[in-house]
């Protein structure tokens, strides 16, 4: 389906940071990925992984005190973000980078549209659903008010809202959760973009409604050929809808693969652990195998591989080496990348180093019960820092939880 010519969107080494009083939060820390025409690319990770910030960075919509500090975002040959080295050695914005006004008029809405997680909060409560839809259509498609209205009604019908002419006049709170999400989908599609960023669009919905929405997106995607970036924490949704998947952990992409390879030929221990820790709807899993500890805060990520404090396969070298995402396999001509030094392409440091102290026993313990391993995760981190930092760590982690 995707001719591997030029990608629609190319993201390279994107870094977005939040400058808070407590320090710099490296929410997105050097991620690279592409989106080709007509494909659905997943961006998956737990809360605090930085996936939402990453997706908003693509539209240059990062709220203060956040800022894109490095990297390049190219969309259809246009530079949404790009830096170059100035004469004084400092990084400065490239000349061909779109201005704020250009991003607003040329990119947002008409080229890249978004669907947010919470359909109630996303719709303005004091305007009718129709008028909001019409406004965006008018703005992004150069249609007259009447034409936009007709288009809006048609689009509401297209996303399966019964009686669209009548419901056009209604307010968001008169719609059910599922119907609101349909309205947001209608908004995105009505602007005829080439790429839609869907940020956890089904998380707030019930499972049967989620099913309806996924079906709807599947059908519409086939019909309109729109590309999607699908941000989610749910591996089930990923398996259902994505063509290729990026797994994020603590601001980085740790694995990047076509969906089938990700599930059946998992290359990164985090992905592996995540899959093993999930209860399954399709078969009875007697024992869950939880990941030890919790995700650290992005304000002070662990040195070396960021997953090493929780990784069952971690070795001494993992504390030192910070692996970038490298191609470790190919499937159907598509690369399968992973950021883990246990793969051969990273050399033999891993083979030569010893497993982390006590990792073997603790892994065994965490197989039966994740409790104290969660605790020991905290403790080990504070020990690796300084002795008194324990309370600060816990507090910071709370911040990490809240980020998304």
């Amino acid at each position, binding site marked *: 389906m995707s001719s591997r010519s030029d990608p629609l969107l190319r993201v390279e080494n994107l870094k977005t940071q939040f400058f808070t009083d407590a320090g710099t939060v490296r929410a997105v820390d050097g991620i690279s990925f592409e989106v080709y025409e007509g494909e659905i690319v997943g961006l998956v990770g737990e809360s605090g992984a930085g996936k939402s910030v990453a997706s908003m960075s693509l539209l240059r919509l990062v709220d203060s005190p956040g800022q894109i500090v490095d990297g390049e975002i190219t969309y259809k040959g246009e530079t949404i973000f790009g830096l170059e080295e100035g004469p004084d050695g400092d990084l400065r914005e490239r000349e061909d980078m779109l201005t704020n006004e250009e991003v607003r008029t040329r990119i947002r809405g008409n080229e890249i549209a978004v669907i947010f997680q919470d359909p109630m909060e996303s719709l303005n409560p004091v305007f009718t659903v129709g008028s909001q839809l019409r406004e965006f259509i008018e703005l992004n498609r150069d249609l007259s008010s009447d034409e936009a209205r007709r288009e809006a009604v048609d689009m509401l019908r297209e996303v399966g809202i019964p009686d669209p*002419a009548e419901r056009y006049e209604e307010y968001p709170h008169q719609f059910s959760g599922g119907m609101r999400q349909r309205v947001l989908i209608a908004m995105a599609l009505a602007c005829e973009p080439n790429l839609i960023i869907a940020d956890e669009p089904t998380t707030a919905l019930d499972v049967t409604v989620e*099913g309806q929405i*996924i079906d709807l997106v599947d059908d519409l995607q086939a019909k309109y050929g729109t590309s999607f970036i699908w941000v989610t924490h749910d591996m089930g949704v*990923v398996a259902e809808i994505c063509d290729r998947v990026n797994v994020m952990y603590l601001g980085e992409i740790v694995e990047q693969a076509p969906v089938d390879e990700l*599930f059946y030929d998992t290359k990164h221990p985090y992905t592996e652990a995540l899959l093993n820790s999930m209860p*399954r*709807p399709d078969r009875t899993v007697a024992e869950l195998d939880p990941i030890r500890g919790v*995700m650290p805060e992005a304000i002070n990520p662990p040195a070396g591989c960021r997953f090493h404090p929780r990784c069952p396969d971690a070795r001494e070298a993992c504390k030192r080496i910070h692996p970038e995402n490298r191609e470790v396999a190919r499937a159907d001509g598509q690369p399968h990348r992973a950021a883990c030094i246990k793969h051969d392409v990273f050399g033999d440091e891993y083979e030569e180093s010893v497993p982390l102290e006590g990792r073997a026993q603790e892994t065994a313990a965490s197989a039966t019960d994740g409790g104290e391993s969660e605790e*020991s995760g905290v403790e080990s981190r504070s020990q690796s820092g300084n002795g008194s930092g324990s309370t600060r760590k816990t507090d910071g982690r709370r911040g990490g939880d809240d980020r998304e």
Partner: protein
Amino acid sequence: MGVHAKPTGDAEVTTVSKSSPDGQLGSEMTGETVPYGEALIEVEGLKKYFSQSGGLLPGISLDTNQFPPISVGEERVQAVDDVSFDIRRGETLGLVGESGCGKSTLGRTILRLLEPTAGTISFKGEDLATLSGEDLRTKRSEIQMIFQDPQASLDPRLTVGQIIEEPMRAHGMLDDEGREARAKDLLEKAGLDPHHYNRYPHAFSGGQRQRVNLARALSVNPDFIVCDEPVSALDVSIQAQVLNTMERLQDEFGLTYLFIAHDLSVIRHISDRVAVMYLGNIVELAEKEELFENPQHPYTKALLDSIPVPDPRETGARGVLEGEVPSPVDPPSGCRFRTRCPRLIAPEAYDWDGEEWKRTRSFMRAVKRRTFEPMPAAEIRAEFFGGALPQGEPGRIVEEAIEFIATDHEAGTQTSGQAKAVTDEAGTERDGPTVDWEQATDRLLEAFAERSICARERPAYEIESAHGTGTHFTACHLHR
């Protein structure tokens, strides 16, 4: 400094928890009277209705369209309506359903945090529904609850130690020192560092807070714990940690869980038996394997089909369910799922032939939900019935309904006056003859849906299990 869990079944651990000096506590004594596997809780005909109006003058509603504009009479939300089941000692009963189905209300009503409208809740042979005041309060040492939001369920101004000791204090259990020792012991058992006894809840992560909740619930040595979505606020990897701890504690303390969740995967993992709720009713209840592998109720099937499976090679049906959940204020008669049921039973009043009922049913639903645009009668016939209407009486009714919504019917047949008065917007817009969805819907529902057995009788059947030995309850007339 990691705390090392003692393996399950460790003799020492068991003695610590069982022999702790809690002589005042009757729970263990009475608990022993119900052997494992026997019903600890029997819920019979439980109802919980909420009256919807509030404010200044409850029960009085204002309607300016009538005279006098004030009327008395309240709308009642039938959150839980006539539910019966039992929970056996030592098991985990999973209660699953979508938001608004009444599962949380059911859990809270069993705990008597809500006043039941009708029915009995027999706990070890004693009816909780009739208890009140001090009797009820003392009973609470035997039944506890774990909440969905680990943050909101812990008072931010108390230390975890105080939080865990509060129930013991309320039931006059142990002295100060004993309580502290037990709280620390419980912290450890729940997978936390006992040194965190003096910390405040906000210093913990979500998973750890849920462990504090567990420790609090266990502090009075209850027999039964209602767990209301205990892991749904947690990240996947933390979920597994907490679930494992809950299972370990269940074995260790001989607990009985009512585990409420919307996540079928979690339910499948933790439950022994599973009850599925829809709109205030339990529609199916069976042992876990039986329910997941051999679901009998159309709603359960739809639910199972809808879950996204974390397996890209699995390409099952999904989103099979149409329409939306009806209002619990005025739920459908008979089977509450019938308005969306893909297998609504044909009304016996008519003779049906082959595909006729299926087509009529989908036409009826399409009209009710207005999922298509008004079009000429011939097109409607072609689209929904392949050109051939059902034989006999049903055919005539369908024809009448088509008359109401077809764009080319002769204006003013039987409906002229009324139809014009309530003209639909869609109709006026296209300058054609008026389109009357409401009349069409009424005609079809009245003739077909309301006459189905599904609308007339409340289903309740027990069938043979294909997996395991237990009984399989299903509320569907297909099994009549």
